[in-house]
């Protein structure tokens, strides 16, 4: 058992944190949030220079994968700063998906450019009505001429408007919830027949619903036909680990802001932090944060576990603990800020909204309790 970081890891963590503390302070973030793009290409470029966009890219293609601890440190730092960049969607989920599913040649064509920050590719997988079921896909892909025709609709595709490519899952065979028969396609965002309804999410990220009726060349198929489920599932588990790590950063920032605020806000002649009712609430918040941090470690270290059952058990357990922490810490932070907590002015409401979005992303608490039970039944 060893919870220590290597000197290199420590250095990497410190570097990212220092960079973001400087470049992504609250007012700078607000400007980025209000910009038409909604995220910063300059920051993205810096993340590339620091090598952080290659953490899921295999060494063969110039990256550092597997780098679970580095991913954890990076995501926690990004969470602390409430970053709006497409790190989770492109640098984690998109990259891990390509690394797991695309052929070596396809990987060689895409991954180095993604590590360099020159290309963005995000998964377009979830569908209306699918909720969090990973295998429930109705989008269809059929052979047409020498290529493919994709028809269907994808829901809440995070950072789709920012991406060069969408990694679209589609059914080439099987029934609507079958794991077998799912294929993955590389679809240029600007291809004909790809229609985006773009919007911001509650926490200010860019996203879109995507309607597809697109003709694609034969080589748009990534990897083998009908075999994408395992890759989607393993990429999602890496995404879960990254999301849990991000949550820990947001949670810590939220707790810190609350402690700071209650120490300075005075009512009845004393700082409100002197009221024991609030002290105990903050003690409970801390317990949630530490439990989430522990599960963030577990998630990071089990995300690459080859035994799918064991991997799912760990990651779902992590998401449950993190989801509950997001709920409690977010709500109490707002509550302890009083009226200031429900304004747009302070960081706390922005943290609150990001915590809400994290709670709902990649499966909510009930989904993961259910998945944990399913993965636990019969041993494993």
């Amino acid at each position: 058992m060893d919870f220590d970081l290597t000197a290199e890891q420590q250095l990497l963590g410190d570097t990212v944190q220092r960079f973001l503390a400087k470049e992504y302070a609250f007012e700078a973030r607000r400007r980025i949030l209000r910009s038409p793009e909604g995220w910063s290409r300059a920051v993205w470029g810096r993340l590339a220079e620091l090598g952080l966009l290659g953490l899921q890219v295999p060494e063969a293609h110039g990256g550092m994968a597997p780098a679970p601890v580095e991913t954890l440190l990076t995501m926690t730092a990004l969470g602390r700063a409430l970053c709006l960049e497409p790190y989770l969607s492109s640098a984690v989920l998109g990259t891990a998906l390509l690394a797991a599913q695309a052929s070596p040649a396809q990987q060689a064509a895409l991954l180095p450019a993604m590590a360099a920050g020159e290309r963005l590719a995000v998964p377009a997988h979830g569908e209306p009505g699918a909720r969090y079921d990973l295998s429930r896909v109705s989008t269809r892909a059929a052979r047409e001429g020498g290529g493919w025709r994709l028809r269907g609709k994808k829901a809440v595709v995070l950072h789709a408007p920012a991406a060069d490519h969408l990694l679209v899952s589609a059914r080439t065979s099987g029934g609507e919830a079958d794991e077998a028969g799912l294929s993955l396609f590389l679809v240029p965002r600007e291809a004909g027949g790809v229609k985006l309804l773009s919007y911001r999410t509650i926490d200010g990220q860019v996203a879109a619903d995507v309607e597809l009726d697109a003709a694609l060349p034969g080589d748009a198929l990534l990897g083998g036909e009908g075999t994408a489920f395992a890759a989607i599932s393993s990429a999602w588990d890496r995404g879960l680990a990254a999301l849990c790590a991000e949550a820990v950063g947001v949670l810590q920032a939220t707790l810190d802001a609350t402690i700071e605020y209650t120490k300075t806000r005075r009512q009845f002649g004393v700082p409100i932090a002197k009221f024991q009712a609030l002290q105990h609430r903050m003690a409970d918040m801390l317990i949630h944060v530490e439990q989430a941090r522990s599960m963030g470690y577990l998630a990071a270290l089990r995300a690459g576990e080859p035994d799918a059952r064991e991997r799912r058990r760990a990651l779902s357990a992590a998401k449950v603990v993190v989801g509950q922490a997001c709920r409690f810490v977010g709500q109490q932070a707002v509550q302890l800020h009083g009226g200031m907590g429900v304004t747009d002015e302070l960081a706390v409401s922005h943290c609150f909204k990001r915590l809400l979005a994290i709670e709902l992303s990649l499966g909510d608490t009930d989904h993961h309790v259910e998945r944990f039970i399913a993965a636990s039944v019969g041993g494993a």
Partner: protein
Amino acid sequence: MDLSFTPEQQRFRDEVRAFLDASLPAEMREKVLGGLHVSPEDTVGWQRILHRKGWGGPGWPQAFGGTGWDPVRQFIFEEECAAAGAPRLLPFGLKMVGPVIMRFGNEAQQRRHLPPILSGDEWWCQGYSEPGSGSDLASLQTRAERQGEHYLVNGQKTWITLAQHATWIFCLVRTDRAAKAQAGISFLLVDMRSPGVTVRPIVMLDGGHEVNEVWFEDVKVPAENLVGEENKGWTYAKFLLGHERTNIAGIGASKRELARLKRVAGDERKHGRPLLEDPFFAARLAQVEIELMALEITNLRVLSAEAQRRAPGPEASLLKIKGTEIQQALTELWVQAVGPYALPFRREALEPGFAGPHAGPEHAAPAAATYCNMRKTSIYGGSNEIQKNIITQLILGL
């Protein structure tokens, strides 16, 4: 002991229902039931419709143009209005300043100010909180100095709900700076159109504009706008706090939200089946519904004690805490019910008549914004922590 409503109360409920069927405009109903933005015109419009029926003051005595209903009838009325999707009546005139003027105001103030509350001609807002005085309201600093026939008011109020639409504000102001905190406070009525009054919006976490800062710079307020006696304002404010009781638990609105939630969960799918049939979700929903059943009975117990003219007590704190917890839990379940489609946030999609395509089902659009917005309920009106302090002190005697 009998938990049923009497036949007269049942008949009254039928009468209210029939009226709502006939008189509540469809577009108001759709906005409220859909969780969309209700405009100030709707709020005033509904007050006017009620006024024409003679129901403009559901909690007021007949002597002042009210209905004279007892608390149980008021409860039934509010419950039916909420269920039907009627806009919420503004509490600031009807439930706050109105009762204070009836009890402590003079006849001229009653004649001047009460009728336009009923008719919807004046819009009141509540000017208590200040940047340095939230929970500790008695520390407030806004000053009113008597200068001949008027008071000169200086200071800043904050968090003033819907002040941007208000024509009048009732304020707690400090008239005696030498006296101890509560002792030097007076209750003053201020015309918002007076020179020196400035309203500045505060943007909320859901992007909405419902609260404001209100600044007073050398505002001249006629001395006749003082309610009751100078330096007795705290007593009147306390009377007022005990008064917004019949609806403080928000039972009617929570029942409406619960019904909406069931519709939403019936339409949503999990593993291809209605979410309503999912045991995880169904258990969470049942839990809230059960809490609401208990609170309704608790609320009716408090109301019938009040109807028997027992002094209003600190039970209101219990109703407020539990009521807001239920309101908030219902919005949490709404968010959970719509799943990933809780994330898209487009304010324009919350405006009535939004024509553009929705991201996801229409019932998903307001969920997250409503959840965020409703966090306020455990903060305003005396935060839930302050309510617990009241319970520990006044009920438990600790």
